[in-house]
């Protein structure tokens, strides 16, 4: 317990320094936003504890969200303000997840059909932004339904994988899900859902034959999608030979790597990086911006925070007795961490770049809401302390 309070103390000192810097040096008029966020997280922490849940993830998530706010503010104050309101909405999603007992609601058709409906609505009424038709607009409010749809899908999948009531139905839903994503040309989330599903399915019952089948599906899916989606070929080429396409498709990945390298060990310092040259610095490439300005120490710290969240999640799941609940929770853990691997792996050129958000860091309210909802549901599964 005392170590936790120490974490809070250190974090508070760090946070006060940042706010002080923003307030004094930058003459910041939005200083109340990080202060509000900080008190909000303090409140979330104590309410979660009061409700008898495990709350140790909150300080780490708070660090991520506040770092995100600082960097978004540094890029464009409007983005920070937008992210601030997004975070407040996400708090509602968190408490909904914490107390809504969603994962206990055993209705396969509700979860699968709501997930698919969201996707089909996007397909029918969606707006195309950057290659993929992934946005749904209601008035002036825009959001990315896939972020929520994949959470809904995994509430369905987790229980189905354990209880095996209608395996054929489950595969049919999955195939429908991938088909709609393919029609939207949104291949990043499709890959994320595929990898998370494979991991979860192998967790439930491992066999080499199954693994072989999944690898086979991955390869055939990869090559057949190359035939259907020319923009995917561009991404693969940009990944394999960015130096050949300096000014075109290789530009973003190279600028990201230049930014990381310019950061070096300790970084150029907040505000000192040359980040205006990185396309999509606030969403896809916020991690590279942090890498340039906070250096290797900063990026390693963030990775350690993510790894700590993985530790927290798995430790919490060990205390969950119900198989279905545990599998659903593990599905969330996979969705969360595989997304991080895909985004950072793309920035580091380990994988082709897929254009998704980095959980709790990138700009994007839908993503934040979905992540907080998952966090709330995961927390609610933990054994209650009396």
């Amino acid at each position, binding site marked *: 317990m005392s170590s936790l309070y120490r974490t809070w103390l250190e974090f508070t000192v760090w946070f006060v320094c940042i706010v002080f810097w923003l307030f004094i040096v930058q003459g910041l008029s939005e200083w109340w936003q990080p202060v509000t966020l900080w008190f909000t997280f303090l409140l979330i922490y104590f309410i979660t504890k009061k409700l008898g849940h495990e709350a140790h993830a909150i300080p780490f998530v708070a660090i991520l969200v506040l770092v995100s706010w600082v960097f978004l503010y540094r890029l464009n104050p409007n983005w920070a303000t937008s992210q601030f309101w997004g975070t407040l909405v996400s708090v509602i999603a968190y408490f909904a997840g914490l107390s809504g007992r969603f994962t206990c609601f055993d209705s396969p058709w509700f979860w699968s059909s709501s997930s698919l409906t969201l996707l089909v609505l996007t397909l029918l009424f969606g707006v195309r932004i950057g290659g993929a038709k992934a946005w749904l607009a209601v008035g002036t409010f825009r959001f990315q339904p896939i972020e929520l749809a994949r959470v809904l899908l995994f509430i369905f999948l987790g229980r189905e994988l354990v209880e095996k009531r209608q395996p054929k139905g489950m595969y049919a839903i999955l195939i429908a899900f991938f088909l709609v994503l393919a029609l939207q040309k949104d291949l990043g989330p499709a890959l994320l859902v595929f990898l998370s599903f494979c*991991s979860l399915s192998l*967790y439930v019952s491992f066999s080499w034959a199954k693994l072989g089948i999944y690898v086979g599906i991955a390869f055939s899916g990869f090559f057949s999608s190359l035939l259907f989606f020319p923009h995917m070929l561009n991404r693969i080429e940009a990944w394999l030979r960015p130096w050949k396409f*300096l*000014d075109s498709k290789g530009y973003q990945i*190279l*600028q990201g*790597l*230049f930014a*990381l*390298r*310019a*950061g*070096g*060990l300790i970084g150029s310092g907040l505000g000192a990086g*040359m980040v205006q*040259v990185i396309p999509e610095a606030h969403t896809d490439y916020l991690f590279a911006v942090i*890498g340039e300005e906070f*250096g*290797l120490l900063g*990026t*390693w710290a963030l*990775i350690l925070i*993510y*790894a700590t969240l*993985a*530790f927290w999640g*798995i430790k919490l*799941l*060990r205390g969950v007795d119900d198989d279905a609940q*545990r599998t659903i929770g*593990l599905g969330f*853990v*996979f969705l969360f*961490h595989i997304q991080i*691997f895909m985004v*950072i*792996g793309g920035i*580091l*050129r*380990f994988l082709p770049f897929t254009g998704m958000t980095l959980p709790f860091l990138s700009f994007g309210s839908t993503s934040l809401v979905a992540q907080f909802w998952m966090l709330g549901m995961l927390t609610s599964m933990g054994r209650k302390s009396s």
Partner: protein
Amino acid sequence: MTSKLRKCFVGILLGYGIILVGLLYWQTYADLNKHSANPRYYQMFQAERGTIFDRHGETLAKSVEIDDKYVREYAVASLSHVVGYFHQRYGITGLENVLHDELIRGRQIYTTIDLQIQKIAQECLGSNIGAVVVFEPSNGEILALVSSPFVDGNLLDKNWSNYLEDMRSPFLNRATHGLYPPGSAIKPVVYGAAFREGIIDENQTWNDSGVLAIGDRTISNFGNRNLGKINIDEALAYSSNVVFAQLAIELDNSLLDYYRSFNLGNKVDFILNNQSGYVPEIVHSQYDAALLGIGQGDLLVTPLQMAMIASTIANHGIMMKPIIVKEIRGGLQMRKIARSEELGTVLPEEATRAIRRAMELATLDGTARSDAGAKLHIAAKTGTAQTGKGKDHAWFMGFAPSRSPRFAIAVVVEHGGTGATVATPIGTDIIAKILELVTERERYKVSDHDW
């Protein structure tokens, strides 16, 4: 159940481990900072950077502000091979490149170059194609390094296309990268080798008829000159190919070991990049040995290496590591000082004393003869390296004053003619003017002190 969850956790940790290693590589190791597509690279060209000074605090390169941007300004064009240039479009060369990380942090670089000696060397070399290197023998500090022709770092925008079209390659640093056969200028090393191996002594004489037959081939003196009965000092002073070919045949493969011990065939451990030259692995025949003994055959050296040979003989056989950057200052009173470093004793002192005596004779009465040379006690050796086509390369290497050397020098004039008629006047002139300069400075210093 629990062990399966643990496996999941280990899998996730493995993923993060790979990412940590990837970050380590891309953030601290990958060679991206100077990539041509990196906009940070271009921004850097407009920033202020440290100043480069000569040994007396004269500015060699500095940043000048023009319209909120900084531009590099150079004191003399002839230093473009040493100091280099720093230009957004044309890149970074020389010390600007090697010490880039220090300079962008605003640190000051103090070189061992003496701006006035550099100017003297450049003026004396004039419009000839070639190189001059001037050393301080006792500590290995380079006082001047000229390679002609050169580009002007201040006029790159204006003259770039001319430089590119110039058939004389003004970008080539001939002092460090020019490969020439040394010709007779290598004979002091052969002399030293023969002395050390004990195959010559002062009283020994040869009868030099001007031509030496080796099997069915011949080695002859310059112009087939018949030198008659000569001793070893006279053989060096008058540059007898007949005598030195015989010494080389006798030394056989050990001669090549002596060449290598003088760092020939190896890159010099030096802050500026340089060529290694070439020394054959073994001697293939007596004729081959004879050619190598008179600096022909496959032997190739750089002017920097020849200057180091002159400097080593002047420094009693102790070879010094060449230094051109002495101090880096900046930051929190940070000073990095390059100290003189001995690379080893290449020849015993008696050998260098004997070589020095012979080289003095060369200035008094031999191929490097000149009134000024005799008056100023210059010890020197000339070389006329045959090139197969065009005029010969003219060499001059030496040091002065011969009994307590303060300056060692190597001069090469590419396709200039003979060492005696082309390189000797230039080398002698440079030494004379340097000695005049330092005498003037010392007088000034004394009177300054008195006042």
